[in-house]
């Protein structure tokens, strides 16, 4: 029995800003629906969606074996600053770590820029006498009397949640743990987050920021999740409810309530998990996941079905999506580049007569000019409409009638006039620049990881990606693109493909050459036990896999490489192997090694996970262009010809496996449009996905 059958009927729910997507899967059948997100009480929308999808599928609640849930609630609370009344308790002398941050301006030339205000204002940041040194020794004992006094103050301030962050607690957490005990004894109703649990890594600002963000969203998330799980049970859904994390794994409600910060960005993680699953289904080694929505494009690299991961993330970027303008959060995440390039990204011309696109976005209100909702500035969607890549009548399943004249006027006014270009050429420029931005982001991301971008297969989903995929691929030298079905609810479908997993990390700064192996093996086992304790309740009787990694760098460098460890106690022989593995990886990335230089260890991590779902091969139909007729022609502007060219348009539901289309052509569907460029061929494969390939002799740009 395969595991997916073992889990029976499965339900995935993804709460986004506008829509709550629900996907139900039973064996081979999948039903998806969208309901409006109910901002005031998101659980209401979730329950509505579940009820509707169960009715449509004729499935009884009791038959559901698993519910998987992802939500942007924690992220929204951080962006909108609507979390709990939070206090922060830290080491005497370090009251302002949360506010001084990196002490750096993230935008060098803007003397009016502001740093992100801390989640906890200074008057709610308290210090207590205590001090642990870098090696874990106690330099100053924790003053428990001061904590008791503090407890009274916290109470009178009406504090709901507390973050505790002491220096070097990633080495010795005793003071943080004791401080929590003392405060909870006095104020048992409080939520308390300690930095050594939520992010036991060196670098005080990042760790404290993570602890504080966790504390800030915890009461709200705990309330929401408890309420939701009670309501589900009330509906007869007695199955486990698991939460999607930003690392692309599933976790239990208990763990989600303790570490809600691990749930940020679960939606995009779902998309990456879908692409990872497809990579395994199609047997693809290197995959570039390209998810373009309304405001941003997300790019993720996948190797052998496993997405790149990291532990550095920034939430609530407040300034042109710039790095440094948000709050750092050190939790396991799927590594993605997110750039301000979506259908709603606005175009303008700068002082150098250059077209600039994004990161400013028209959003859904007022939306691009062509929405006719009062938007006056041109967006990427306007450019696609002017170029006739989109059908004004069929956009978003015909739910929004687009206004081509408004799009044309906005583009002519804001871009064309300054450059002396007509609306069509200005639209070509907008499209080129947004594609160039996405291609650059993907290329740099790949190079930074020592990957050859040309070898990747692109998996394109989200409303905007299939429209731009061919042109971005051409810029990257990528020659194959997959466009899955149901691209509009990709995240929810991705949730269904995610394993149950948990990662535990610990910073232990030291030299690889003189590690205390017995102590190290002790920590690693404890970390494994901690991870298992969180995974097992969500995956009873399932076989678990374990992976271990360590971050290594040459002594004195700033960038670490993640090297895999054997999942057993380390012996002296392993150290030589680690050294060699590090050097191999370093050489692969930078073309040289530094033989005399020592190697430092920074952070160790252990991940426990259920096994990835078994995959079945895609049946290959025989392909033919016969029997598939376009529904019409659209005059799509062709920059090479310098004029509109009649282009056949197909309706995706008409296309069955085996269909073959030679570009240039367009395939419309409710949620998106796929553009097949000149020199490309599209086939509808055995799963009904669009599989596009560049025809030989059509390389270059």
């Amino acid at each position: 029995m395969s595991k997916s059958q073992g889990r029976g009927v499965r339900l995935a729910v993804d709460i986004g800003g506008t829509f709550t997507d629900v996907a139900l899967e039973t064996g081979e059948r999948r039903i998806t629906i969208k309901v409006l997100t109910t901002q005031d009480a998101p659980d209401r929308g979730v329950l509505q969606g579940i009820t509707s999808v169960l009715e449509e599928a004729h499935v009884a609640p009791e038959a559901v074996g698993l519910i998987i849930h992802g939500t942007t609630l924690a992220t929204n609370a951080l962006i909108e600053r609507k979390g709990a009344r939070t206090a922060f308790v830290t080491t005497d002398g370090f009251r302002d770590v949360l506010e001084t941050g990196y002490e750096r301006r993230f935008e060098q030339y803007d003397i009016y820029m502001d740093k992100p205000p801390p989640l906890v204002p200074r008057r709610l940041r308290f210090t207590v006498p205590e001090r642990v040194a870098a090696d874990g020794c106690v330099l100053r004992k924790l003053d428990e009397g001061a904590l008791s006094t503090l407890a009274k103050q916290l109470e009178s301030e009406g504090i709901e949640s507390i973050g505790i962050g002491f220096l070097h607690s990633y080495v010795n957490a005793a003071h943080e743990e004791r401080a929590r005990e003392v405060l909870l004894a006095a104020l048992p109703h409080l939520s308390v987050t300690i930095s050594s649990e939520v992010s036991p890594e060196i670098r005080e600002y990042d760790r404290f920021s993570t602890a504080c963000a966790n504390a800030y969203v915890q009461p709200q998330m705990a309330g929401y999740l408890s309420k939701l799980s009670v309501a589900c049970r009330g509906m007869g859904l007695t199955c486990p409810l698991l939460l999607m994390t930003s690392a692309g794994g599933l976790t239990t409600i208990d763990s989600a309530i303790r570490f809600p910060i691990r749930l940020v960005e679960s939606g995009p993680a779902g998309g990456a998990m879908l692409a990872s699953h497809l990579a395994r289904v199609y047997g693809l080694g290197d995959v570039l996941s390209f998810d373009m929505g309304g405001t941003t494009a997300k790019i993720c690299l996948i190797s052998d079905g496993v997405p790149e991961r990291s532990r550095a993330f920034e939430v609530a970027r407040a300034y042109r999506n710039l790095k440094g303008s948000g709050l750092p959060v050190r939790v396991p995440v799927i590594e993605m580049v997110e750039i301000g390039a979506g259908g709603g990204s606005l175009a303008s011309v700068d002082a150098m007569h250059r077209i600039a696109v994004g990161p400013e976005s028209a959003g859904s209100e007022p939306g691009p000019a062509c929405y006719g909702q009062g938007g006056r500035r041109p967006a990427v969607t306007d450019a696609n409409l002017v170029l006739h890549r989109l059908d004004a009548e069929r956009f978003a399943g015909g739910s929004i009638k687009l206004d081509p004249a408004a799009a044309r006027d906005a583009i002519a006014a804001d871009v064309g006039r300054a450059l002396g270009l007509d609306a069509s050429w200005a639209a070509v420029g907008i499209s080129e620049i947004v594609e160039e931005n996405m291609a650059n982001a993907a290329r740099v991301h790949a190079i930074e990881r020592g990957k050859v971008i040309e070898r990747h297969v692109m998996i394109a989903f989200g409303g905007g990606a299939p429209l731009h995929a061919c042109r971005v691929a051409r810029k990257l030298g990528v020659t194959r693109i997959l466009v899955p079905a149901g691209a509009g609810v990709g995240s929810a479908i991705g949730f269904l493909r995610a394993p149950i997993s948990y990662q535990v990390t610990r910073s232990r700064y030291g030299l690889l050459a003189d590690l205390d192996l017995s102590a190290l093996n002790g920590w690693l086992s404890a970390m494994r036990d901690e991870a298992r304790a969180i995974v097992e309740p969500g995956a009873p009787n399932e076989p678990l896999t374990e992976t271990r990694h360590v971050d290594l760098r040459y002594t004195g460098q700033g960038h670490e490489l993640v090297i895999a460890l054997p999942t057993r106690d380390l012996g002296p022989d392993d150290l030589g192997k680690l050294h060699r593995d590090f050097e191999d990886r370093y050489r692969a990335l930078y073309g040289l090694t530094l033989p005399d230089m020592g190697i430092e260890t920074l952070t160790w991590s252990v991940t426990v996970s259920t096994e990835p779902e078994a995959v079945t091969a895609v049946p290959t139909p025989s392909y033919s262009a016969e029997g598939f007729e376009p529904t019409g022609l659209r005059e799509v502007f062709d920059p090479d010809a310098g004029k509109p060219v009649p282009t056949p348009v197909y309706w995706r539901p008409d296309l069955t496996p085996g269909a073959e289309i030679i570009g240039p052509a367009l395939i419309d569907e409710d949620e998106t449009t796929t553009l097949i460029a000149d020199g490309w061929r599209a086939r509808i494969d055995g799963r009904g996905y669009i599989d596009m390939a560049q025809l030989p002799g059509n390389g270059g740009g």
Partner: protein
Amino acid sequence: MTASPAGQLHMQVMWNRLISVVEEQAQALLRTAFGSVVREAGDLSAGVYDLRGRMLAQAVTGTPGHVNTMAVAVGHFLERFPIDTMREGDVYVTNDPWMGTGHLFDFVVVTPAFRAGRLVSLFASTCHLVDVGGLGFSADARSVYEEGIRVPHMKLYDRGTLNDVLMRVIETNVRQPIEAKGDMMALVSCNNAGCTRFVAMMDEFGIDSIDPLAEHILENSRRAMEEAVRKVPQGEYRASMTLDGYEDEVRLELRMTVKDGAITLDYEGSSAASQFGINSPKCYSDAYSVFGLKCVVAPEVPNNAGSLSVIRVEAPEGSIVNPLDPSPVTARHVVGQMLPDIVFGCLHQAMSGGVQAESSGSIWVLAMSGPAERDSAEAFTVMSVSVGGVGARPTKDGLDSTAFPSGVGAIPVEVTESVAPVVFWRREFQPDSGGAGRFRGGLGQIVEIESRCNLPFQISAATFDRLRNPARGREKGEPGAAGQLKLAHGQDLVGKGVHEVPPGERLVIELPGGGGFGDPRARSPDAVAADVRNGIVSREAARKAYGVAVNEDGALDEVETAKLRGG
């Protein structure tokens, strides 16, 4: 412009790509270079040049000090190694302060990019090495000869073969040879990355020469810069500023002339060069002067030979902002990073609405060293960075404890303590350090450091200024707090020179605050009360400087405030 629509868009896309190439080059360097200053603070730079040595694009990295310095550095290389002598596989290097980026610590490496055997462009990069021998990071040298090893314009690689002799000489003359070699290799390999991507770009776009793109970039940038400059009212503006200096106070004088779409900044009348290493070579003075100007006049125009050509900087030879070889220059940023403040002093008179008040200015580099542990011959050296407050803006408070104009950032206390036997007992805002004003200056901070193992340690105070000359406010805004350096139980220390911190004693460092903007009595009483509740303005200061009465519980006393302000 006569180009076809397609051709015009083509140029735009290639310009966009070129910026991406140099950003990638800089990232490659950031990941492989050594030392906390590069690692945590991004003290590096990367750029691409045409065959006339004109800078076309530069990555935006940690420090503006590399802006103009890098723009002219490649031109200097071309004088020694003309284009027609360059061969595939050649790599050139220098750390000459006057030919590179202003002090020996910065090595500049230039690599010619070849495509099908033909030279097509040049890539250059620089980063701050951990050590260059000599006195180390100190302002105490009396000439550049004492400051470390100096490498004139030389070949680091000749047709692909490493110059072993040069490398061995460098390795022999520095305290951390492995890191030095690692950094040199990092510079070489990031340039290679740039060359490779650039050649791929030429293939992709099917171009044979960078020249048309170069003209497009330089022309559009120059024009944008000129347009921006034309918005500054024509005229002559003057400002002056006094700094603590080393042996004597430093007097800076600036005359800004705005005429016909160009700006000239002239430091005529400024102090003569110091005998100590706080002198700012002309290239470095240019960089920070232009940075200050661009922040106000044209923040969105990229740095390249075109945009920079619109601004001229002049400084008398032998002055502290144009010291001649062999003046010592290691701590060049003490003076160099103060220059945006004096440029703002001129611009404030020219621009309606005014410009931000003075800031704490140069970053305070904490270069500490001493015995690594008891009864051991082993020594440690570690470098940390602290920053004070930024001046208040005409419409906003100044940034608290944030580097300006330098783009570097803090090194985490946990990182410093992990690599050196020191303990930071304190690093937090210093209340009342932000200059009072309608908009408050940014807060400075107070830092306390002690030996971890009860041994003495040294601090090389090369870069501490504004101990006697605090950041001034504007439009009735008050100055920020002056900086201070002292021992917890002992005497005040001066801002320059090497100090020993005895065992058990704490070094106390108070970073200066930024100046205020506007009359403090015009500050919103609620904002003052909020500052009091947050403990960054004392009740006494609220009363005295702002005329605002705040009760012990932090509530605003409106009646008393009206009385105070009415008087």
